[in-house]
């Protein structure tokens, strides 16, 4: 009985500590850390190796306004039934969330290229990963310097 009480007290302290921690996180949204980036990538690729190459990530190296940054990802691929790009996944290092976008395509695309505009909350690394029809993953990364950050400023 005595033992059980102590356990529940410890449990309570752990819970309270957790709540306090959650409170801090809410007050100041945590930025995606390189560890979060790595786990977001693992969620997509699983245990498969990610090789550098085939992917081209076009993004300006220096941007004034992080609220809208043009980005183009293209992949070297014949886009045939046997050999094509199935998906392209883009990640960042330091936004509040590590994901930017997932794009799904197929041999009917003819050209493996996707462009969009993204937000960057800080100067950081952007990573693009492509999954090919054979299941292999290829990547490219780029460092971007941002002078005016996006996302977390007062609205």
């Amino acid at each position, binding site marked *: 009985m005595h033992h059980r009480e102590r356990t529940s007290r410890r449990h309570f302290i752990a819970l309270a500590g957790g709540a306090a921690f959650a409170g801090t996180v809410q007050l100041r949204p945590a930025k995606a850390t390189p560890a979060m980036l790595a786990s977001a990538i693992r969620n997509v690729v699983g245990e498969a190796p990610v090789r550098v190459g085939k992917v081209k990530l076009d993004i300006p190296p220096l941007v004034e306004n992080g*609220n809208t940054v043009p980005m183009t990802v293209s992949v070297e691929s014949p886009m045939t039934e046997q050999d094509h790009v199935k998906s392209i996944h883009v990640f960042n290092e330091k936004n509040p969330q590590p994901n*930017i976008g997932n794009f799904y395509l197929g041999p009917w695309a*003819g050209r493996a290229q996707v*462009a*969009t*505009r993204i937000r960057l909350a800080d100067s950081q690394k952007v990573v693009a990963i492509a999954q090919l029809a054979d299941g292999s993953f290829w990547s490219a990364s780029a460092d971007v310097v941002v002078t005016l950050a996006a996302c977390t400023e007062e*609205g």
Partner: protein
Amino acid sequence: MAAALISVPKQAKRGDIIEIKALTSHIMETGYRRTAAGDLVPRDIITSFACRYNGREIFRADLFPAIAANPFFSFFTVANESGKFEFEWIGDNGYSNTASAAITIL
């Protein structure tokens, strides 16, 4: 219903690789911003975009708060038959928007 801007070639030769561009007006509120009073502004983003060519899905995107306001996408497809491109955006708070464009194969 928010305005959408679509760019699809009106005509193409069979087998041409054509570029498709789609933009829709949307705030893409990240859910990480605060008002001057310190209140968190709730997230309001488009979460999914898809394009179908004569009923077949040719492009799909999952969007996160890191996609800029007024989401813009450019992608490619092989023009192989006359018909219709249909675009669909789905998002938070029941957001839904559609657009379409026709193509003629010469």
